[in-house]
């Protein structure tokens, strides 16, 4: 069963391919865009710019600290650097540089953390980026964007490029099906989008978990449960109004993310909900373990990131809502 199949979504290529298209589009549109690579441009697909605009592409090599530092220096020159590599290497190796040279300096640099989550699969836990939401969350000026499909990838790379200030964006190795139609949604920093309307519960998700949430919603509909699905593509700033509206109108929330539960999207949603409009919540994400090599679908199943896992969480949270006597 492929992601989005139950919801009838149109299949697509891997997310990284659309990043390649997106970065090429912004480089073509804006001559101030430069791309810095940590010798993984063929995997992140940042290399599309190398072919089209070689003078604006710099492979800094396997030296992430220097990669970020050079990017920050170029941002100081009124250029718009996209600093690209795997989330695991870039964020973990160069966190200090991202913190001082980019975030604290509030420079107009963009950071691509590719191969986010566990769905890079067979290369195993050393390459997986399961802590990127938490790490970037620790940088107060860093805006955080997580596309969920080809259309949002293309749109959000442009949104990030046009935004004045530091932005991080997650990309994935896996294919996520089409959720949006081109040009129908106004993506923005701080935005979110209801991708399915519902009354009984809201599933708040980002990245590939949006498609899983839509699959779950299709399954739950057969049980008579009406699920809203909110694509929370902007993790900073978070769309507080949409989250609280969902809490008020549906009375129960499930958060689903391809990330550690600790320090992830759900923990931040819970902070907003508990202080704004407390309702029962459940969380689908990674427990405190390191993952292993394997086929992405097998891993999603083993580590409980499937539509089935979301359905279980929804049934639980609706039970809790009824127990609490909420409408």
């Amino acid at each position, binding site marked *: 069963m492929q992601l989005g199949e139950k919801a009838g979504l149109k299949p697509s290529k891997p997310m990284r391919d659309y990043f390649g298209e997106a970065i090429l589009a912004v480089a073509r549109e804006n001559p101030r865009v430069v791309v810095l690579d940590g010798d993984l441009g063929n995997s992140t697909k940042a290399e599309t710019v190398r072919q089209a605009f070689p003078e*604006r592409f710099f492979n800094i090599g396997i030296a992430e600290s220097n990669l970020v530092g*050079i990017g*920050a220096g*170029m941002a100081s*020159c009124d*250029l718009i650097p996209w600093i690209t590599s795997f989330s695991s290497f870039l964020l973990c190796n160069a966190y*200090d540089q991202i913190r001082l040279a980019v975030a604290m300096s509030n420079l107009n640099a963009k950071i691509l953390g590719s191969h986010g989550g566990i769905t890079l699969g067979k290369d195993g836990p050393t390459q997986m980026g399961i802590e990127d939401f938490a790490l970037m969350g620790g940088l107060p000026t860093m805006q955080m964007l997580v596309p969920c499909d080809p259309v949002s990838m293309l749109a959000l790379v442009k949104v990030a490029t046009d935004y004045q200030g530091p932005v991080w964006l997650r990309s994935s190795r896996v294919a996520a099906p089409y959720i949006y139609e081109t040009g129908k949604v106004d993506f923005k920093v701080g935005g979110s989008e209801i991708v399915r309307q519902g009354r009984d519960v809201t599933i708040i998700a980002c990245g590939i978990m949006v498609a899983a949430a839509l699959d779950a919603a299709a399954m739950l509909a057969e049980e008579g449960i009406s699920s809203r699905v909110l694509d929370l593509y902007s993790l900073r700033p978070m769309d507080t109004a949409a989250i609280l509206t969902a809490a008020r109108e549906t009375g129960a929330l499930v958060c689903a993310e391809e990330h550690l539960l600790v320090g992830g999207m759900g923990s931040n949603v819970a902070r907003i909900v508990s202080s704004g409009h407390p309702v029962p919540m459940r969380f689908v994400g990674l427990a405190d373990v390191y993952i292993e090599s394997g086929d992405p679908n097998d891993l999603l199943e083993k580590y409980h990131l499937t539509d089935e896992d979301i359905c279980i969480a929804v049934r639980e949270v609706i039970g809790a809502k009824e127990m609490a006597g909420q409408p």
Partner: protein
Amino acid sequence: MKEKIETVQNIPALKDLARELRLDILECTTRAGSGHPSSSWSAVEILTALYFGGILRYRAQEPLWPDRDRFIMSKGHAAPLLYAVLARAGYFPYEMIMQLRQVGSPVQGHPVLGMLPGVEATTGSLGQGLSLGVGHVLGSRLNHRHYRVYVLLGDGECEAGQIWESAMSAAHYKCDQLTAILDYNKFQETGPISREMGLEPLAEKWRSFGWHVEEADGHSIPDLLEKLHGIQEVQGKPQIIIAHTIKGKGVSFVESDFTFHGRALTPEQAKKAREELLCN
């Protein structure tokens, strides 16, 4: 586009200025009750030569002048020196440096980009400044600007891997507009470098990384000026001036005691230091 800036050309005047800067550093760190006066004092002549000896092109009244030469203080703990120099160069009122480390003041313990005019980078986590310098050089090429980039390195931070990553990339990209100056005072936080984590043979290391290397007496303004002029002729290679310095230079009881790294002088010690600096 060459910018003519007014500089003090005669050496005695530059020496007087260096003494004033030492006093500034003493006053602001003593007032703050913390800071790194000894690490600042070791690089006083280096910054005097750069900012007031006609090397750096800048416009204090137009801090973001696109064609300005860049100066990046990679050893961010020498912030008091940078602030004193920028104040005396006219970037902001002199009185501001006395707000060092106070709540609500922009004069941060270590430099933060955007807080004060003339500060080109956020530094203080060591090892980062040279990469920024390479970025400025690559940026200048894309922007068709012809400025030079100077980075002041500490010796202790040359223990950091990022310094050598950036050294490698500067040579790879033939950054001949990039000059590093190494304040080689031979001491790091906890002791002599040779004892804690030896750097030698340092000149050979830089040479093997593809850099043009010069050595200088880091307290001789004429020697520094000569080297700073000389390296501008180097083509196709980044350059480093290894400036041999004395940590705490100018105050005898600080020079002889490396434990002064990272602490200010007491008011009594400051009084003694002030007298000594004024006598010299």
